């Protein structure tokens, strides 16, 4: 396995909520990344933000790892949840809150 896949695996194993995004939660550099970041913050979730723009290998690597063509990508408890569209829909329908509550993350 490549080093970048190992890095991603260890991040999603060691952190209950991980957001791979463009920019940081303090300074997002894309509207979709900002959208997920704000959703999580509004729900009071503690999460780790990983800026894919800091590393070109990671920027491509996360797409290959998840088999998902876009960023942001949200992982909860080691499982891929979705990008902005899916996370937003889940939040609107209360599914995201239910999932976080079930995992005692908010």
């Amino acid at each position, binding site marked *: 396995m490549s080093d970048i896949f190992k890095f991603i695996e260890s991040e999603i194993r060691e952190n209950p909520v991980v957001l791979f995004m463009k920019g940081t939660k303090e300074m997002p550099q894309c*509207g*979709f990344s900002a959208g997920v970041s704000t959703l999580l913050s509004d729900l009071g979730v503690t999460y780790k933000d990983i800026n894919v723009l800091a590393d070109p290998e990671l920027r491509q690597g996360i797409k290959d790892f998840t*088999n*998902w*063509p*876009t960023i942001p990508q949200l992982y909860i408890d080691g499982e*891929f949840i*979705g*990008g*902005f*569209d*899916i996370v937003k*829909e*889940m939040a609107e329908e209360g599914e995201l809150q239910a999932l976080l509550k079930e995992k005692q993350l908010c």
Partner: protein
Amino acid sequence: MTISEKELLETLQQAFPEAQIACLDLAGDNDHWEVTIADDSFNGKSRIAQHRMVQEVLQNYDIHALSIKTKRKA
């Protein structure tokens, strides 16, 4: 690279012939699209699986921003 509404709609219609499809040009530049697709083929599939079906159809197009909404047919 951009894609015209006609080409986008036709590509999606070919892949989802029975679906109700709407394409919205979010920025008026043919490069920021929101597509809403209602199709029975999504039934019983996870959101991730539904989105992957749409991503696959558009994988050869380099669209700057693509927002996808999938649902069952009304």
